[in-house]
C-alpha cells in the first residue's frame, strides 16, 4: 500500500470510530475495526485510554491485531485476566466508559439484532451468531457506539429480533425496562454518524461523510431519519498524518483496513 494514497473507506471508518474515544477513558473493544480504532486513538488524541476485552483481558501490552477476543493479544501480560462474569460486571459498575459493537440490523431506536434474519425463529432466512456479549455490553455500558454497513435491510423500521435493547421504543422506555446507562449514543456507517434525538430517542443524522447527501443516507435506511437543526455538518476526515500513523503503526499489514481485492 502506498502511504500517500488517499484514505480508503475502511481507514476513514477506523478514524471516525477512534474520534469517538475520549482520552482518559476505559474502552471496551471487540476485534476488527474497533480494535484498530482504539489503537489509533491511543497513538493520536487519546494516549491515556485503557482497553478491556470480553474474554477478561484488562490493559494488555499492545501487540499484534487480535483475531479473536480470546486471543493472546487481548491479555498480553495483563495484570489481571478477569473471569467473564466480572468482565461484564465492570460495565455495570461504571468502570467502562464506552464500547463498540457491530450489528446485523439496527432500528430507529438503536435496538440491535445479531440473532436472525426472517420472521420465524424456527425457520429463519439466516440464523446469525446470537448475542455473545452484544446484549451485555449494550445493556450495561454507559455509552455504546454501533458500527456497521448501512442498507435499508440493515436499518429496518423494526429489527427481526431484539438481541440488545438500545432505546427500546424510544422516550424513557429503556430506563423503564430497568436498564442503566445511556444506551447507544452513536451509530457509525459508511454514510455518516448518527445520534439519537434526546427526547424521542429516534435516530438522527449528526454528520455526513464527504460526498454523502441526506437523500443517499435516507435511501440506505428503512425508516425516516431525523435531521438536526440547520445545515448538517460534514464528518471530520483524518489528516494525512493520522492516515500515516494508521498505516505505519496501527495496521501495517492492512489486515483490517485494506479493502478486499475483488
Amino acid at each position, binding site marked *: 500500500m502506498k502511504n500517500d494514497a488517499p484514505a480508503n473507506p475502511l481507514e476513514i471508518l477506523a478514524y471516525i470510530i477512534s474520534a469517538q474515544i475520549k482520552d482518559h477513558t476505559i474502552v471496551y473493544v471487540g476485534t476488527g475495526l474497533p480494535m484498530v480504532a482504539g489503537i489509533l486513538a491511543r497513538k493520536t488524541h487519546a494516549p491515556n485510554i485503557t482497553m478491556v476485552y470480553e474474554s477478561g483481558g484488562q490493559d494488555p501490552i499492545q501487540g499484534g491485531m487480535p483475531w479473536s477476543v*480470546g486471543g493472546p493479544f487481548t491479555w498480553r501480560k495483563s495484570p489481571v485476566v478477569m473471569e467473564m*462474569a466480572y468482565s461484564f460486571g465492570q460495565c455495570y459498575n461504571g468502570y467502562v466508559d464506552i464500547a463498540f459493537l457491530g450489528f446485523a440490523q439496527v432500528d430507529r431506536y438503536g435496538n440491535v439484532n445479531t440473532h436472525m434474519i426472517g420472521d420465524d425463529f424456527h425457520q429463519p432466512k439466516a440464523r*446469525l*451468531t446470537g448475542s*455473545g456479549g452484544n*446484549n451485555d455490553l449494550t445493556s450495561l455500558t454507559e455509552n455504546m457506539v454501533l458500527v456497521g454497513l448501512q442498507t435499508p435491510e440493515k436499518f429496518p423500521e423494526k429489527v427481526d429480533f431484539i438481541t440488545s435493547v438500545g432505546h427500546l421504543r424510544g422516550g424513557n422506555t429503556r430506563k423503564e425496562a430497568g436498564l442503566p446507562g445511556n444506551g447507544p449514543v452513536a451509530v457509525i456507517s459508511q454514510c455518516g454518524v448518527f445520534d439519537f434525538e434526546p427526547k424521542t430517542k429516534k435516530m438522527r443524522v449528526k454528520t455526513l461523510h464527504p460526498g454523502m447527501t441526506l437523500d443517499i443516507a435516507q435511501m440506505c435506511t428503512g425508516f425516516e431519519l431525523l435531521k438536526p437543526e440547520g445545515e448538517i455538518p460534514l464528518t471530520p476526515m483524518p489528516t494525512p498524518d493520522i492516515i500515516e500513523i494508521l498505516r505505519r503503526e496501527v495496521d501495517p499489514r492492512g489486515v483490517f483496513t485494506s479493502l478486499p481485492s475483488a
Partner: protein
Amino acid sequence: MGVFDYSREALENLKIDDPGILDRLVDFENARAVHLNKNRSKKDKRISLKEAVAEFVQDGDVVLDTGFGYVRTCIQSHFEIMRQGKKDLQMIGAPNTNQSYMIVTGSVRYSHNSYTGAEMRGTDRNYTRQLKAGKVRILSEWSHGGIAQGLKAAQLGSPGLLSKQMLGSDIVKYNPYLKVIQNPLKKESDPSLFIPALYPDVTFIHAQAADKYGNAYIYGPTVNDLAGAAASRKVVITAEEIVPEMDIRCNKKGSIIPFFYADAVVELPYGALPGSMPGYYYWPRQWWEKLMRFSAINEENIGKFIDEWVFGTKDQIEFIEKLGGAKWMIEARRQTKAAEGDNEDVDFSYQEYTINNDPGIFY
C-alpha cells in the same frame, strides 16, 4: 407437572412441549446430591480420554462448553464424544458454539445458545441449516454474561441472582429459565432479571497442568471454567501436562480447580486442538477458515469435514500429523509465545484460506 415454573411465553415461542427436558440444568437438589455422593478420596484419577468419555458422558447430558472460542477449548474431547457416538446432548453454547458440527452426527441435539460462529471467520451456516432441518432444538437463548452469571450464582451457593442484562430484549422471550421481577429492595419500579443458578451435567476442562488427583491449573482467560467446575455434576480434567501435586501447590498460583471436583484426569497434550492453548500452541487459523467458509456451507462438505478430521483421526496425535506434524508443532509454539509477549520478532502473517485459495497448510 414438574417443580419448575418456566416462562410460559418462552415455552410457547420455543415450541417446547416437554419442559421436563429443561430441568437438569437448574436442578440444584439433584446436583447437590450428586456432589455429596462423589468419592472424596485423593486418589489417582488418571484414565484415557476414551475411558473418560465412555464413563462420564451419558446420552442426553447437559454439556458445558469451556474455554473461549478457539482458546483452551476442549475440542479433542468433543471429537471423542462424536467418535463414540454419544447422542442427544444439550450443549451450553457459551462462550462459544463453534462446535455445530456435533449436531451433524447427532451428538448434540439441544442448544442453550449464546453465540454461534467463529468471530472474524464468519457466521456458521451449518448451524442455520441444522436448525431449519430440525436437527437441533434451541432450548434457551442467552447472552454470554447471562450464562456467566448463572454459573457464578452456582459457585457462590446462590439459588440465582438478579441481573440487568437481557432486560427488555427478545432473548427473555426465548428463555424459559428467566423471570423479570421487581428489585425487592426498591420502592419504585426497578425491573430486574432473575437468572437461576446453572448446574450442567458434565464439563470437560482443558488445563495447562494438573496433578493426578485433579488439581488443575489454568493460565490465561479462565472465562466460566472455575464456576463451571464448581457447578457441574461431573468434571473431567484434561491437561497438557501431568505434574506432581507439589508443583501445583508451590508454583501454580492463580487459577486452580480443586481436586475434589474432578471425577477423572486425562493426560492430553494438544487437547485444545484445533484451538490454541496459552503457553503451548497457537491455533491453525486456516482450519477454522476452511470450516466456516467451505465445510459448513452444505451437508456434503460438512460430512466430508467430519469424516476427515473427526472420524479420520483416532486421537490428537493423528490430528497433529494432518496439520503438519513436527513443523506445525514448532511453528505453533513459536507463535503463541510471541503473541503472549515473550518475543516480538515473529511474523503472524499467513496464507489465509478463502473459497478460492486453499493453501493446504495449517500454519
